[in-house]
């Protein structure tokens, strides 16, 4: 057992995490177009603030997948970066009164800034220890935010964050327009994640995930790569957290608590680790489910999400995307072998 712990985590990732098994470019382009259309059409069919939640949590899940699926690091403290950005964005927006994208940029930088020491310390431990160390640091930030109530508002949170968009003041009822104003930020985050994994840098990350000792032997500074991707991931989580707090108009301690870190990991695993696509899928399922449960007056959402977590981990470790991809793969190879049999 100790042998497993010395490495990065060995997770069952979906096909797309292995570049040689990617779908062909036409299918991928088609999927991308479909995804964009879905994202553009979403607030027409779903209550816009809920649609915004799906995108924010989806991007948050992408940031976790970047670490878990593509580098083999489970961060169980990503709420720190989401929450740090949520508070900083809110603080800048209320105190300075800049347009919200600028405030989110500030929040994102703050998240990346605290990710540097956290990452530096966390990468000294691997495997499950990495998860525990990141979790502990996120909790530390939670305590600090709770104490620094002059800035964070303590238990009450930071309220009344305005949605100022380059001279236009979007009020609460303009959530439909806010969705489209914030959409480019979400897409930017997703694009950064995609660029990261498809770059030579991303290939090194895969090498580290699959065999850290070999990556080291090939001359790569494994720790430095891990810290770099950790900071990138924190930045993406920061973009998502900033959008979330502006969308809701407040930032609260809920953003920093460890159940938030757990929730985003649930979304990632539910959607499919190592897919990038999976995160938003998992986020959509969880957000819609929670919305449904909350409106039906059911208190005890943890019972449902906890049960989903247990079932997913026990039975569908590749998540929705991974299970579907496997299924398609099996049909295709079934057809191929039957084709050979005929000939």
């Amino acid at each position: 057992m100790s042998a497993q712990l010395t490495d990065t985590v060995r997770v069952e990732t979906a096909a797309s995490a292995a570049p040689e098994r990617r779908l062909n470019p036409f299918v991928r382009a088609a999927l991308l177009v479909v995804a964009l259309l879905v994202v553009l059409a979403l607030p027409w069919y779903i209550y816009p603030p809920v649609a915004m939640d799906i995108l924010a949590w989806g991007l948050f899940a992408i940031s976790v997948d970047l670490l878990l699926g593509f580098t083999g690091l489970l961060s169980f403290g990503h709420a720190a970066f989401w929450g740090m950005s949520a508070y900083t964005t809110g603080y800048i927006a209320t105190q300075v009164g800049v347009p919200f994208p600028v405030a989110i940029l500030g929040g994102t930088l703050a998240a990346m800034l605290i990710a540097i020491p956290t990452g530096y310390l966390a990468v000294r431990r691997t495997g499950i220890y990495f998860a525990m160390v990141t979790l502990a640091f996120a909790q530390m930030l939670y305590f600090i935010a709770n104490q620094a109530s002059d800035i964070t508002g303590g238990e009450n949170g930071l309220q009344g964050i305005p949605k100022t968009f380059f001279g236009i003041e979007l009020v609460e009822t303009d959530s439909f327009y806010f969705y489209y104003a914030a959409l480019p930020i979400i897409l930017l985050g997703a694009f950064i994640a995609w660029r990261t994994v498809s770059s030579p840098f991303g290939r090194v990350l895969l090498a580290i995930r699959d065999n850290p000792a070999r990556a080291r032997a090939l001359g790569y500074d494994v720790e430095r790569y891990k810290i770099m991707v950790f900071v990138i991931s924190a930045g993406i989580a920061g973009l998502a957290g900033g959008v979330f707090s502006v969308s809701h108009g407040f930032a609260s301690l809920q953003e920093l608590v460890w159940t938030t870190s757990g929730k985003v990991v649930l979304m990632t695993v539910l959607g499919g680790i190592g897919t990038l696509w999976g995160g938003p899928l998992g986020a959509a399922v969880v957000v819609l489910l929670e919305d449904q449960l909350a409106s039906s007056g059911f208190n005890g959402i943890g019972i449902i999400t906890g049960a989903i977590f247990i079932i997913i981990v026990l039975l569908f470790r590749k998540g929705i995307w991974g299970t579907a991809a496997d299924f398609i793969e099996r049909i295709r190879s079934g057809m191929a072998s039957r084709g050979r049999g005929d000939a």
Partner: protein
Amino acid sequence: MTEFLQYTLQGLAAGGFYALAALGLAVIFGVLGVVNFSHGACYMLGAMVAALLLQHFDLGFWPALVIVPVIMFFFGVLVERLLVQWLLRLDPLYNFLLTFGLTLLTVDVMKRQFGVSSLKYQVPAGLEGRFTIGSVDLSVYQLFAAAFAVVICLAVWMILTKTRVGMIVRAATEDAERSRALGINVARWVTPVFGFGIALAGLAGVLAAPYRAINADMGSNFIIILFAIVVIGGLGSILGAVVAGFLVGLVEAYGQGYYGQLSQVLIFVLMAAVVLIRPAGLFGREEVA
């Protein structure tokens, strides 16, 4: 100086719970390779069950001290047989996530059942009152709890070092693979060890019941501190868990005494320092990566 003594005793008292629960976490990790996220929830269940035994069956603190760990042992056995065992061969990450899901489930079930307000529990007869020498002032119960935790830790230590079962568990903790190669049936001990670890968490819960607020959320901060403790002590090390448990109790008490509200942050600063200077933990062995 008396201030210092006061905080030291308080710290040792608080450290007792941490040591007891962390010991359970360390034993489970050692033999099964599972980081049990639900340990905080089990601590909470221990306290809740004690309170419910009092409410419904009029069973007080002393019977609870025996009954609750037994109940929690069987709860642990059930969890291991139904859930944990299926993932033992995979990366430890999966059982970490599984027990995280179990935590969410357990906490919200208890919340739905018993609400968010705290259940009542009084200090057992004979242990009320304060213990005062000069300006040192502690509750008698706190002293009892600390002493009791130390006794249990010592008893577990004796079991581990002096009995055959203990030897097997230690061997499995050290190196499960090699123990198997030497003909020890490690698999046979997996379920009871898991139950035993959970029972220790439950016992810590019972001990905490008379002077902590008993509610569904009482384990949620506890588990994070436990994780910090095992990172400080070195996760594979049983001695490390106990020593770090008391250490963190002391740091928390000094922090509360001298710095007020920032005591919780100090624990994580200590953890950061350990990770920086000795990544494997105070008593952990260096990993070869």
